Structures are given as structure tokens and as C-alpha cells.
């Protein structure tokens, strides 16, 4: 009974808190040739088919800037985006009142300081399947699927991009200009990424390497931030 009452109070607090804060939201929208990416659906690439079976990545360290001055960094902002979990495709950040900004900067992946900090919970828990045990560190970006263009046994591609140690540090910092609205859409145009690869040979990248760093840069270039319609 006491626990019930306590739960109710806590819930009430959360509701009140939600009403009193200044919300900023980003909706994440992965596309392939301007069409929404749906797992296991088929898309066209270079006159062949391509299917995406898994898309997971970390976005972290959301920092709001006015010109080049950071005005607010969201505390503990580590978000695992997983296309199979619709809830993960919206990121909400509580901003301080009367803040003004015109840029947003964030990391695609997990920085080396966090990698060095020992085990963590929530989205950073190694249970989430985004952690390497054979060469410990976070996997920043995972993209898997298949296409006849992949010249291997099951015509599959697997990109597990990670690694935080020089010279193969994969984390990418992205910065976008924004209007002052409280809602933006993050577009990831995956066809931009695939069109720059030679899938016949570049289908399996799963360890920190020069190639992995190059692919991380490519995938970062497919991100844009748009004002919500």
C-alpha cells in the first residue's frame, strides 16, 4: 500500500516536472533514396537489390552552441538508436529556460574518455550488444543486410564500426546549423553511403582499422539535420 502511494507520488512528480521543463526533440529518420528505411524491405542500388536487416548506432554528447560558444551540454547524453526499437528514434533533451542557440553538435559514437571509464549502464550497458569483448570498446555504428552486389557466401554486408584508440579512432563529431525551434529531424541518407562503396569487396568491416575510419567518415557525411516541417 505504502509502495503504491509512493509510486503514485513519484509519477505525479514526473508529470509535473515534464510540464515545467523546456523540451528539445530530435526525430531520427533513416532514408534510402528518400524513402523511409524499413528493416527487411528491399531497396535498389546500382540496378541490384539491397536489404537492411539491422541499423544501430550511438549518438552522444549533445551540445548546443551560439555561434562557436557552447551554451549547454546535455548531461549523460548517450543514446543508442536502434531501427528495430521505434522508441529509440526520438531523442528528448531538457534545456534550461531562456537558452538561445543556433548550432547543435554531437558525436556519432562514443568518445575515448567514456570508453576509458569502465563499465556503464543504461544505453551504454554491454548487454546492448554494441560492445566488443575481443578488443574492448564500444561499437559506434552497426549496419547489416544483404545485396547480390556483395561478393561473399551469403551476399551479406556487415559494418561494425568502432575503436577509440589512435590512429583508428572512429568517433565522428557532427555540427549543424539550426533555427531556434524545439523540434528537428535527423536524416540519414543511407544510399549516399552505399553509393560510395564497392560492395563486391567492401562488405565486411568489423574491427578498428584505416578502412573502418574511412567508412565512419562516409557514414557521418550521410547525416543531415532539418527543421521539422
Amino acid at each position, binding site marked *: 500500500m*505504502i509502495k503504491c502511494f509512493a509510486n503514485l*507520488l513519484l509519477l505525479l*512528480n514526473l508529470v509535473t516536472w515534464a510540464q515545467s521543463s523546456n523540451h528539445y526533440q530530435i526525430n531520427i529518420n533513416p532514408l534510402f533514396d528518400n524513402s523511409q528505411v524499413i528493416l527487411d524491405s528491399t531497396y535498389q542500388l546500382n540496378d541490384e537489390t539491397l536489404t537492411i536487416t539491422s541499423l544501430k548506432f550511438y549518438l552522444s554528447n549533445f551540445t548546443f552552441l551560439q555561434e562557436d560558444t557552447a551554451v549547454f551540454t546535455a548531461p549523460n547524453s548517450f543514446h543508442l538508436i536502434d531501427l528495430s526499437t521505434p522508441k529509440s528514434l526520438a531523442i528528448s533533451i531538457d534545456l534550461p529556460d531562456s537558452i538561445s542557440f543556433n548550432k547543435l553538435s554531437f558525436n556519432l559514437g562514443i568518445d575515448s574518455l567514456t570508453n576509458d*571509464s*569502465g563499465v556503464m549502464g543504461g544505453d*551504454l550497458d*554491454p*548487454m546492448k550488444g554494441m560492445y566488443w569483448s575481443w578488443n574492448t570498446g564500444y561499437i559506434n555504428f552497426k549496419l547489416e543486410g544483404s545485396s547480390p552486389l556483395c561478393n561473399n557466401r551469403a551476399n551479406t554486408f556487415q559494418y561494425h564500426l568502432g575503436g577509440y584508440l589512435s590512429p583508428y579512432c572512429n568517433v565522428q563529431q557532427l555540427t549543424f546549423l539550426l533555427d531556434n525551434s524545439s523540434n528537428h529531424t535527423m536524416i540519414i541518407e543511407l544510399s549516399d553511403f552505399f553509393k560510395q562503396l564497392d560492395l563486391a569487396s567492401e562488405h565486411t568491416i568489423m574491427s578498428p582499422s584505416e578502412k573502418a575510419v574511412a567508412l565512419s567518415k562516409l557514414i557521418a557525411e550521410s547525416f543531415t539535420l532539418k527543421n521539422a516541417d
Partner: protein
Amino acid sequence: MQIKQWVILCLSFFSFVLFGLNETFAPTSIPLEYPTDWPEPTYDFSKNPLTEEGVFLGRKLFYEPLLSKNNMVSCSSCHLSFTAFTHVDHALSHGINDSIGNRNSLALINLAWSEHFMWDGAAHHLDVQALSPISDPKELGEDFNVVIQKLQKTSLYPSLFYQAFGDSILTGEYLLKALSQFQLTFVSANSKYDKVMRKEEGVSFTTQEEKGYQVFKKNCSSCHIEPLFTNGGFENNGLAKDSILNDLGRFSITQNPEDLLRFKVPTLRNIKYSFPYMHDGRFRKLSQVINHYSNDVIPSSTLSPLLTEGLNLSHEEKVDLLAFLLTLSDKKFVFNQNFTYPKN
């Protein structure tokens, strides 16, 4: 606005008090005990403070066969407390279904001062080290999430996790932190060497041990630095490459050619107990180890520069060195009842 914030604060306080009435989560902090003249531990205890409950949970987990795919093998299978937490008698340690691994298990000693784990430094933090043996098909071979599901279903673990971390829902973070807590207590600082250094009454080196200590300081101490008897780094110590294992050491992690055939410099503490020796367990006896360094070092581009000439020890120096190495045995450590299978 201010009134609203006050209301929220009061309500929060009230609800936390109510929660407090209903549950008990009050872990007891314990300090890590180590000699005052040792360096500060490198492990960041602020992120995972030692508690009696956390250490006990870690100890249960360390001996828990549910961590393996066939529910028969635990961490302790390859890390026995009576042998300084290593797997004696086996050159290469074995896991589930009699699978033989690729390396000789390392002794677990003074891990709070260690920054690289595994022979090639594959794990960069103690907290995440256990992920590798749990998932390696030749070790415990189990999916990490399945381990957590299995433990969650037991009658024991949810309450142990609650007592240690305030949450009966198991997470990977808590499991790994508990394992770290137990392993951080593996402090070995009570060997004869330590007592001599502390000038304890009635303890002194024999003439032979003292001569061996001088041989050690001249030839070994630049990599096996006192008092931890390791420099924490990686070296190529001139072993011939095993053509079947083809183990390239640190290189396989960094891909840096300078790391070819470099392996973790292990501590020499409790070396009497932790045979066989080297990453592939090729030497059964300490005398073979000493002979290797003295006469059998194989030159290569990444060989530790201190070994280029070999140590060329005389027979007498070898015997003296061996006598000194045996003073690093810490009986209190290997027979510590706090490290054995937790009976209750």
C-alpha cells in the same frame, strides 16, 4: 514557478522517504587495504566503490557455473585461489567441453594497479575484461545476455544484486562491477620479500636470496618493477614463435608492427604457485624460464632492447635468482579464506 519547484522538491523527498521505509539498501563500504608505500591504485574506485555486498556478489559470480554455456565452468575453473588465481598444470587453459584455449591463463594479482588485461591487452579496463572469457567459445562460451537472464531467474541473485546495487533487476553493468569488486580485493603484499622490505622483526633474506635480489635488480627489474613486479606494459621477451598457435601478441589488438610478439609483462609475485610460465605455458619450471632469459633469447626487430645480448647468467647467479623469486610467494594470499568458494 518557484512555488511549483518547491512542491516538486517536497513531493520527491516524501516519496523517497516512503520508498526507504519499504526496502533496505544500505551497502557497507570497505576500503582497499594495501601497503602505505605502494603507489595509488590506477582503478577509479569513485565509479565503483568497494562494498561488502558488492564484493560478496562478485565472489558468488566468480564461482558461478551459470556464467558458462553448459552451466559447468566458472571463472574459478581457470583462476584458482590456491594457485594465485591461475590454471596450473595446463600449458593452455581449457573451457567448456574440454576446449583448449590459445593461451595460459594469467594469475590475478594486484589488479587495482593494472591498466591492461589479457596477454595482448585485449581488455583495456578491469570492468570489461570478463566479457571476453564469458563469450569466448573456448572459455565459458555463453551469450552475455543469456547469463543475465539465467541469473535473474534464480532465487538468489536478484536479492544479492539489490543488496549490492539497490536494484533487483540485473544488468550487465552491475554484474561486471561486482566481478571487478571481488577481483580488486586480490591484493598480495605479504610475501617474505614484503616483510624484508618492511623490516619486520625476525625476517631477513638468506645470503643466497640477497645475492639473488641483486641479480634480479641488475637484470630483471626494469620490466618487473618493484613493488608490483611488472611495468604494466608489453614486451617481446625473445620466445620462439609457436608455429601452430602463431600468436602475434599485442599486434593483434593494435595492428602496430612495433607490437609484434609483444605480450603483457606479468607480475612475478607468487610465481612459485603459478606454473606453467609464459603466454603459452611452454615452461613448466622456473629454471627453464631463467635459462631462456640467460641463453635462449631469439633476436627479432621488436625484441626488448634489454635482452639483445641475453642475460648470460652464471650457474650460481641462476640458483641465487631462483631463491629470490621464491621469496615472492605470499601464503596469506593463496590461502586467504575470503577468496575461496563462498559457502553461504
